[in-house]
Structures are given as C-alpha cells and as structure tokens.
C-alpha cells in the first residue's frame, strides 16, 4: 500500500512541478524527486521479494496504509524544512527584521 501511496504522491508532485515549470521557487521538483526515489526503491524491493518469496505483491492493510501516510508526511516535513531554511521568498528574513 505504501508503494502505491508514495507513487501517487510522486505523480501529484510532478504534475504540480510541471504546471509551474520552469519556475520552481518552492522546490516542488525536489519533493517529487524525493518521492520518486523512494517509489523506485520500493518497486525493486517489492518485485525482488515477490520473485524470491512469492506471496502478495501489495500489502493492503491498515498498517501499510498508516506507513504510507507517515512516509508522505515525512517527505512533506523535510521539504517544508528545506523550504523554510532556504527561504526563497525572503519571508523569514522580513519577519526576523521586524
């Protein structure tokens, strides 16, 4: 389930990035690459585990869903922290001056 959820988040982030490209003030491109990296890695993990051990390809249960949500939230938190620290709008600078 977390593979599907991460892939979906990656697709949404990529569409948002593309809609605003070449402008990428809010580093949505970086967020989409974060999510694509995880999606590709989990895809390999799922395929290899399926080939070696068999069983279900997708885990469809509450635990896997909660993990998927947590993964997306972590990616968003890291993206937000990078955004605030790099402060592309200069908002933090203006706020701290006052």
């Amino acid at each position: 389930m977390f593979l599907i959820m991460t892939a979906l988040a990656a697709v949404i982030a990529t569409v948002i990035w593309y809609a605003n490209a070449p402008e990428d003030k809010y580093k949505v491109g970086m967020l989409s690459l974060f999510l694509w990296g995880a999606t590709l890695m989990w895809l390999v993990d799922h395929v290899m585990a399926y080939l070696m051990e068999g069983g279900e390809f997708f885990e469809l249960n509450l635990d896997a869903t909660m993990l998927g949500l947590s993964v997306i939230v972590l990616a968003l938190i890291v993206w937000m922290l990078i955004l605030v620290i790099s402060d592309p709008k200069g908002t933090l600078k203006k706020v701290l001056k006052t």
Partner: protein
Amino acid sequence: MACFLVPAGEAIVTTVIQKVVENNEKKSGAANTRESGGKWSQRLGWLNKMLWGGVMLLALEHIWHGEVVPWPPFLTAMQNPADVAPMLHEIATIGVGMAVFVTVVWVLMVIIAEAKSRTIPQVKAKPVAGGA
C-alpha cells in the same frame, strides 16, 4: 533489513562528486552554457535527490518495522548472529538492485534531457543598435 544502506553509500559518493563538479563548473564559468553539456551539477542533483529521498523514506519504513533502532548496533539483525547472513544477502541483492535501478532511471533522464536540450535553438545575444 538494511537494504537502504547501499543507496545511502551511493548517495554519499554522488554528493561529493556533485560538489566537485559544481566547483569545476564555477571555476570554468561554464555553469550556464549549453556547450558544457548543460549543468552537470544539476543533472547529478537529480540523482542525489532521488537517492537521499529514497534513503530517508526507506529508513522510516525500517524504523516502522523495527529493523532499525536508535541504539547500537542500530540494526536489529546484528543482535542475532543467525540474522547477519540473511541481512548481508538482502544488502547484496535488494540493496544493490535499488541503487542500480535508481541510477539506470537517472541515466535515462539525463539522456532524454540532453536530447531535448539539443533540439532547443541556441539564442545568441546581439548588440543593440541605434540610439544616440
């Protein structure tokens, strides 16, 4: 168990390479020209972001499943000698597979980007004529 350690190792190496390439591009003043093949530090940045993002999110998954803990030896498989061999096998198969797959996807991205950038007509700045 610890498959994300292979992409993590690759990410460290590629981050160092990106910094070196970035410095070289700055020194040669070729950072913004198409002649240099177009911002290799930017291209390497794509790989780094995919690797670090994947490592970070996979680390959360491993913590979630209790495979990584915040105290030594950090990997729960290391606590039981019987689990060490399967862990190393997983690193050698799934871990290497992840790193290779992400790198292959990045190579494809770079090939497509390079092909696309060649089709863009080069704009030459012309001196402004006229005036007083």
